[in-house]
């Protein structure tokens, strides 16, 4: 039987190479889609873990502030705790390379005589040199090579509005400790880092090595109790989990989208297996009549499916890696923009992931092929040998299938309304039920659409009607395209609505004429402060009516890391700066200004269950600080959550600190670009970044669009898979329906007409898929906007119909469907009338 299987497979592949190719393409694209996202997800978490391993790999515990830094006096406390074998303080700050604002160094300030194991490149650094030579820094060999630095070379960095001149003192190869550690990790003496780049007397972290045999969890508890509520004591694993949790929503959404591509790919595999089996029905019937058992037939078919799946996997693995590599930059930028996490500098492709992809590919192919294989294995021998009985089954159950889909969807909706609403992933259940309903409804739609058409010629109507002839084949192609269209339309609607919502929000909140910050602000956060002299100079510049100051730091609400911002609430018309979810804006602002209350961003309010009038505890430097909530405002800058308070309140409750950015309101008639030029001339040495209102808005939308770039790639892959399904189906029809095509030729149809008939079939499939996909897409958008987005990100998105984008997509889908039908149409048009077989049609 194995010999027969191989001979038969080779013969079939020779006869229908394109069909097999499309099966493999379907499996390969599905595998590639899932794999690329898993590689990116893994690499994102891996980038954080690699940094952790490089710097804190020797530590059993890390002590971190609940605000960005904590006082140095806690260090002796740590050393005094029993069970601590060693501890070393760290001060971490990200600085921008002067003149190359996009290049950051992640500076680790450490006590170089402490037990920290430093992986020096070449000879160990001389501690005396590191301590006494001003600006001494050890950089990675990779960065040194990239920048052309050698020991002794000098370069300048900025931290906030400060400039510091550093000298390459040694090379430190973190990658010996952690192969994927960032090349931008650099090492300085802690006192120099504090003094030159940050704040003396403050620490970012204390790493602890426990005494042999010490109970880590007990030690962590004792340290936490001893050091007070201003810090948290974490194991390296817990820190990794924090990063993974931070990215959970982002990763889950990408994974869900990639699974849709896999789902569509699975349909294509199903379709192609079905097609191959229908084509070989006589052969299978003959085998049965010659005594082959159903089990043998099933094994024969499934072995072929597995083989094709494996070929798909073999192609999908490199393709997935390539897609990941092509998109890692934009995803990395999104992660650093939204989550302030490490950049992904290298991709991780562990063997386990390759194994998972292989499993997905083969299991997907098997799942796609199982039903048609079982169906074919079950058939009576006479049915296999008779040509007319196939495709009748699905016609007879089309109504029941559609009813099943509708009932399934209704049950899922009812479940969600009563039970699933409180369960975070409930929205995904709804989405799956929706996408599952689409293929179930499709046969009825195709059949009814065909029946509805009243023929007036041999054009599109005829093509549409003829789709019902091979209902099973065409339904699968239409269904897979409809699912891809649903995804496309749903996400376009969601992104379009989101973009419009953000536009409105930006118009409300971005009102100043000029925004001023520092190059290191994007990464360094709280350390990137503006010198008070710079603030004063900007404030006193002619033409500047008033200045809004922003101080921002990170803190915790419960286990959630949030942004805490302080702005000057005494400035006029402050209530117009925020878009409030409800309540009286003027009253909210008055309470913030006069009563020390705070405003809470919508994502935080949703996730933490907070509302106007509630009180919230924010972990401050010396323990929990409680604030009344004066209002909830729409905020799309961070999904983690944020609070805003008056600057005076922030200084009073969290301790004084520097200003991070300024918003300048100009006198009427002043040209922002001109004022920016004047300011640059006035402060030539201050490393400042000026943005006009217009430029800031442009940058916000550039980041927005970048965030969804990978989504677009997944949409494209899904559509590509679905469109290849159309080609596959039409090729099957061109092959299966030879007699029909020959009949048309015999009745006087020209080749051009057959070509047109098949292009029409492709177009008709595109139209049906569009009809179904638009409906599915709108429903999917509703689930994304009102359920999944709110559950995972907490944003309110106002529904907006991006007609232009939708119109372009409709055009692209129809064009793709037509293009997909060109090759089959060409094949069909070459059918000679002599192909009229003695078989019935």
């Amino acid at each position, binding site marked *: 039987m194995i010999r027969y299987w191989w001979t038969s497979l080779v013969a079939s592949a020779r006869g229908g190479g394109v069909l097999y190719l499309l099966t493999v393409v379907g499996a390969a694209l599905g595998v590639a889609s899932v794999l690329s996202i898993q590689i990116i997800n893994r690499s994102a978490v891996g980038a954080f873990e690699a940094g952790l391993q490089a710097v804190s790999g020797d530590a059993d515990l890390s002590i971190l502030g609940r605000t960005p830094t904590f006082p140095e006096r806690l260090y002796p406390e740590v050393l005094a705790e029993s069970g601590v074998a060693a501890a070393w303080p760290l001060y971490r700050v990200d600085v921008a390379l002067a003149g190359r604002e996009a290049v950051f160094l992640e500076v680790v300030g450490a006590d170089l005589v402490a037990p920290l194991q430093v992986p020096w490149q070449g000879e160990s650094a001389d501690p005396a040199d590191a301590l006494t030579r001003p600006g001494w820094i050890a950089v990675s060999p990779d960065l040194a090579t990239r920048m052309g630095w050698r020991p002794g070379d000098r370069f300048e960095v900025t931290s906030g509005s400060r400039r510091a001149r550093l000298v390459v003192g040694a090379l430190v190869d973190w990658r010996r400790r952690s192969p994927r550690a960032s090349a931008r990790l650099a090492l300085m003496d802690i006192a120099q880092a504090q003094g030159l780049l940050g704040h003396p007397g403050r620490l970012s972290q204390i790493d602890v090595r426990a005494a042999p045999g010490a109970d880590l969890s007990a030690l962590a508890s004792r340290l936490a109790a001893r050091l007070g509520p201003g810090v948290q004591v974490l194991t390296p694993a817990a820190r990794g989990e924090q990063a993974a949790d931070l990215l959970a929503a982002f990763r889950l959404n990408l994974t869900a989208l990639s699974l849709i591509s896999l789902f569509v790919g699975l349909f294509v595999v199903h379709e192609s297996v079905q097609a191959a089996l229908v084509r070989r029905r006589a052969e299978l019937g003959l085998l049965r009549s010659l005594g082959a058992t159903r089990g043998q037939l099933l094994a024969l078919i499934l072995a072929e499916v597995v083989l094709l799946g494996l070929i798909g996997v073999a192609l999908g693995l490199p393709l997935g890696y390539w897609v990941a590599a092509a998109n890692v930059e934009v995803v990395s930028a999104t992660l650093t923009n939204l989550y302030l996490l490490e950049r992904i500098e290298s991709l991780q492709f562990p063997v386990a992931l390759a194994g998972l992809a292989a499993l997905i590919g083969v299991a997907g192919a098997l799942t796609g092929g199982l039903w048609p294989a079982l169906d074919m294995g079950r058939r009576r021998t006479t049915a296999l040998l008779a040509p*007319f009985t196939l495709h009748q089954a699905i016609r007879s159950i089309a109504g029941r299938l559609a009813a099943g889909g509708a009932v399934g969807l209704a049950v899922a909706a009812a479940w969600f309304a009563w039970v699933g609403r409180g369960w975070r992933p409930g929205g995904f259940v709804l989405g799956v039920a929706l996408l599952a309903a689409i293929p179930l409804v499709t046969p009825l739609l195709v059949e009814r659409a*065909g029946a509805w058409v009243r*023929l*007036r*010629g*041999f054009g599109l109507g*005829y093509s549409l*009607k*003829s789709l*019902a*002839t091979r209902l099973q084949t065409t339904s699968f192609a239409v269904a897979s395209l409809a699912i891809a269209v649903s995804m496309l339309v749903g996400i376009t609607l969601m992104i379009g609505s989101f973009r419009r919502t953000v536009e409105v929000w930006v118009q409300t909140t971005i009102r100043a004429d000029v925004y001023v910050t520092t190059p290191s602000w994007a990464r360094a956060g709280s350390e990137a402060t503006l010198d008070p002299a710079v603030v004063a100079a900007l404030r006193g510049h002619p033409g500047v009516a008033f200045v809004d100051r922003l101080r921002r730091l990170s803190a915790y609400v419960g286990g959630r890391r949030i942004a805490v911002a302080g702005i000057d609430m005494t400035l006029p018309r402050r209530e117009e700066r925020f878009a409030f979810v409800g309540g009286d804006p003027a009253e909210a602002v008055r309470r913030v200004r006069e009563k020390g209350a705070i405003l809470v961003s919508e994502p935080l309010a949703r996730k933490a269950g907070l509302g106007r009038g509630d009180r919230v505890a924010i972990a401050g430097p010396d323990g929990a600080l409680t604030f009344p909530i004066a209002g909830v405002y729409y905020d799309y800058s961070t999904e983690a959550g944020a609070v805003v308070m008056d600057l005076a309140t922030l200084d009073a409750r969290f301790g004084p600190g520097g200003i991070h950015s300024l918003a300048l309101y100009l006198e009427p008639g002043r040209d922002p670009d001109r004022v920016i030029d004047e300011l640059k001339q006035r402060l030539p040495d201050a490393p400042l970044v000026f943005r006009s209102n217009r430029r800031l808005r442009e940058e916000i939308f550039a980041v927005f669009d970048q965030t969804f770039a990978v989504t677009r790639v997944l949409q494209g892959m899904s559509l590509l898979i679905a469109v290849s399904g159309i080609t596959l189906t039409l090729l099957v029809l061109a092959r299966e329906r030879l*007699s*029909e095509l020959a*009949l*048309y*030729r*015999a*009745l*006087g*149809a*020209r*080749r051009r*007409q057959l070509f047109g008939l098949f292009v029409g079939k492709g177009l008709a499939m595109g139209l049906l898929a569009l009809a179904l996909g638009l409906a599915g897409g709108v429903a999917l958008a509703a689930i994304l906007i009102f359920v999944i987005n709110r559950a995972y990100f907490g944003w309110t998105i106002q529904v907006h119909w991006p007609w232009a984008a939708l119109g372009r997509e409709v055009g692209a889908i129809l064009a793709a469907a037509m293009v997909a039908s060109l090759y089959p149409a060409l094949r069909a048009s070459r059918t*000679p*009338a*002599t192909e*009229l077989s*003695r*078989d*019935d*049609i």
Partner: protein
Amino acid sequence: MALAFRRVSKVYQGAGRAPRFALRDVSFDLAAGRRVAIVGRSGSGKSTLLHVAAGIDVPTAGDVVVGGRSLGALSDRARTLLRRAEIGLVFQFFHLLPHLSVHDNVALPELIAGGRPATFRPRVGELLERVGLADRAADPVHELSGGEMQRVAICRALLRRPRLLLADEPTGNLDEASSRLVLDLMLSLAKEEESALLYVTHSRELAGLADETWRLQDGGLGDASPPGGLRP
């Protein structure tokens, strides 16, 4: 003259094998309105003759003239258009399309030709009336019996009033009673429509219904028989 063959030969050249003559130097004239049956053993070239006559296949040598136009001088496109305008075809296995109703199956040649529905619908109705299937016009074809299906196929072939009707074993898939009925119908309709009819059959009885019967043997055309019987 509806159809003329001038020393037509058709040779199939198999790779590494000796050439096989499907038609060998065949010549005949078929006058308008004349009805001729062709008989012969399997493989004698009957179907090839019909395919060549319809312009579906091209002869290796000789010429075929349909309605005064030499097919050899025509391009594939022109032959297709000629077939559309001048020739009706009936097949052993009916070749009706399952996604079309009885009415639409009959109307198919006009749909292909781009005819106006208002013009051809009355003609479709009239033909279905004449074959007794007017009340089945909206039915799907798979609900019809074999004889009914072939009647639909005959209507389709006659829809555009062809000068020449070619039928390849039109009763080959029918029982005896249905065969006689269908052939009687086809012969009478061809006469009424003044179409020349050339049909292939294995049945001596059904061949005897034609104006004359021609025997095809090893690709060559034998003597013609008188009306009412086949000359041995």
